[in-house]
């Protein structure tokens, strides 16, 4: 019988998918807006206004011209908001004229987004050598359901952080990320109560593929952020590395001891269980299982348990963090990375925690933390965990071979580390480094000149305050001072025109790729729900395995994770947005 050819691994595929989207997003640097039609979902009270293309280039803008400055034309729209457009030929335009720029509708942008994702993921499905017809049907339903959840999560009464601004009396203030939780709940309903539908979705139910692709894309946005705060970014990375070294050494040994000593598990069960509970769920359980030559059934069983408990943590921990860790946002981020045991669950928890803590800090303390740093911390910790799985599996394989189950002639090569190395991490590192290298010189140049511009702005503001009470002679002197400062600012601004353009392009590129990152996140949440079949696990006799899992996870893993996160991240705060 001819053996069915094996396709690419999900790990490699996620690397390529993420890189394709990243490279397309870079088109803006060459003046080509390739992904600008991607659909952006905003908080809504009127459903017709929730969807729009992410880039202004594709948006329909209609209104009255209020200002023309070279090629920059400011338009006042029907809702009173102003928008500035760059128009090549402004010769025939004047202030007060009506202006309309045709774009694409929100529904059309959603349709384009779906078709793009279908083609890209379809190619991925071919590379995976899975049934393409089943994949297309499954993916279409997964995309549809997940996106409906995403839109519902943006409903004003659920998501708005400032209800007054949204024109409503109250809101749960959960931010649009509530859509993730909704997608997860719907996924759980499908998994546990609709086995027929769950089966139809099987080929497209790939949470690890979706989250790894999202992480590759996310690297770019984090690279831009890091360029603006290199010291903070390097601190997060080093501390993340320290946190996981600690977690590996302490967690694993404790769980292994508890499983062996008190629950009487055999070595074959205890090692994958310890890795699954303590390190990084599925991949660690599988890598450890392979390292100690356990039968395949062992890591598979442990993995299904890991996925289910990651869902429970995902639903609970971000809200616990919001209650207790608003003053230590990055401790919360690292905690999610350390405590939630799947890539999808951890990064997703980081994203939800990011939204919840920022919303709370803004409403209760008036602190507007920059978005994404909590997610970045959770992701950094998780990625180091993934990288170390290979090393840890190698160490365990070596100990098992040479000390515990000594078999003559068996040798472990260092190539095992590469085999176990999560390849999507290469994509994350590449997108992060490329954007960091593009943006860092620009950020540095802007930073240096802003140090000169900001005092001048303060000077202008102080002089303007004095103007109303000044006598004519003093007023003339003040005006002269203001004009001189403004001229200086103009001169300095001219020097950083190019760096500002670079940062603006980088922001647009990452904003566009971020649309797909969010989309992969929603798909992750929904499909995590779909693979979490509590009923099946219960029927299989989860009892003893679940008992050791619950004891270790809630007994000390979560708390040691919190302590380690606290030790390495307390006092480290995300940048604060002012003004």
């Amino acid at each position, binding site marked *: 019988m001819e053996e069915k050819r094996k396709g690419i691994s999900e790990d490699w595929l996620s690397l390529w998918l993420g890189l394709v989207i990243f490279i397309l997003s870079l088109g803006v640097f060459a003046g080509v807006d390739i992904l600008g039609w991607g659909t952006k979902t905003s908080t809504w009270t009127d459903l017709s206004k929730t969807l729009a293309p992410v880039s202004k280039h594709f948006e329909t803008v209609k209104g009255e011209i209020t200002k023309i400055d070279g090629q920059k034309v400011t338009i006042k729209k029907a809702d009173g908001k102003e928008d500035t457009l760059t128009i090549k030929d402004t010769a025939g335009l004047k202030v007060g004229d009506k202006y309309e720029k045709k774009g694409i509708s929100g529904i059309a942008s959603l349709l384009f987004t779906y078709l793009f994702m279908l083609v890209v993921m379809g190619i991925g499905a071919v590379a995976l050598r899975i049934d393409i017809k089943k994949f297309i049907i499954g993916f279409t339903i997964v995309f549809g359901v997940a996106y409906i959840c995403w839109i519902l999560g943006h409903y004003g009464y659920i998501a708005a952080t400032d209800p007054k601004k949204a024109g409503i009396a109250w809101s749960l203030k959960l931010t649009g990320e509530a859509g993730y939780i909704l997608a997860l709940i719907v996924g759980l309903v499908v998994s546990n109560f609709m086995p027929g539908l769950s089966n139809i979705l099987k080929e497209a139910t790939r949470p690890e593929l979706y989250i790894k692709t999202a992480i590759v894309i996310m690297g770019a946005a984090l690279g831009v952020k890091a360029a603006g705060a290199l*010291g*903070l970014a*390097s*601190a*997060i990375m*080093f*501390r993340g590395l*320290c946190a996981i*070294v*600690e977690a*590996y*050494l*302490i967690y*694993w*040994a*404790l769980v*292994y*001891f508890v499983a*062996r*000593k008190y629950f*009487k*598990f*055999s*070595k*074959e*069960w205890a090692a994958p269980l310890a890795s699954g509970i303590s390190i990084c769920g599925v991949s660690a359980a599988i890598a450890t299982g392979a390292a100690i030559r356990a039968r395949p*059934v*062992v890591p598979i*069983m442990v993995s299904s348990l890991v996925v289910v408990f990651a869902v429970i943590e995902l639903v609970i921990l971000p809200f616990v963090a919001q209650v207790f860790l608003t003053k230590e946002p990055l401790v919360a981020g690292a905690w999610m990375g350390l405590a939630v045991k799947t890539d999808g669950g951890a990064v997703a928890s980081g994203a939800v925690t990011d939204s919840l803590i920022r919303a709370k800090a803004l409403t209760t303390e008036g602190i507007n933390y920059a978005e994404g740093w909590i997610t970045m911390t959770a992701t950094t910790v998780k990625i180091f965990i993934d990288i170390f799985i290979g090393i840890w599996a190698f160490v365990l394989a070596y*100990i098992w071979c040479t*000390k*515990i189950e000594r078999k003559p002639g068996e040798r472990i090569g260092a190539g095992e580390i590469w085999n176990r190395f999560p390849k999507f991490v290469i994509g994350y590192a590449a997108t992060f480094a490329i954007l960091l290298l593009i943006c860092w010189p620009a950020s540095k140049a802007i930073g240096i000149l802003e140090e000169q511009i900001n005092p001048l702005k303060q000077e202008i503001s102080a002089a303007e305050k004095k103007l109303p009470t000044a006598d004519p002679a003093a007023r003339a002197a003040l005006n002269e001072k203001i004009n001189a400062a403004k001229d200086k600012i103009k001169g300095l601004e001219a020097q950083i025109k190019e760096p500002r353009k670079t940062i603006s392009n980088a922001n647009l590129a990452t904003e566009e790729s971020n649309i797909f990152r969010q989309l992969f996140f929603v798909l992750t949440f929904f499909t995590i729900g779909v693979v979490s079949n509590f009923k099946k*696990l219960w029927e*299989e*006799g*989860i*009892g*003893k*395995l679940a008992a050791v899992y619950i004891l270790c996870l809630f007994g000390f893993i979560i708390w040691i994770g919190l302590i380690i996160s606290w*030790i*390495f991240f307390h*006092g*480290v*705060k995300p940048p604060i947005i002012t003004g």
Partner: protein
Amino acid sequence: MPEEPKLAEELKKMEYEPLLPVEKKLIGWSIGIGLGLLAILVWISYIFFPGGH
């Protein structure tokens, strides 16, 4: 196609294996190195990667 093994059955099949001295050593060393490194890593991160402290 062979039937998927049930978790409960697999767990029943599991035989008791006492904790070997080498395993105790592995656990002890792992936790020991972890605690020892904790102090060093905290020191390095506070000194060289202050990040707001």
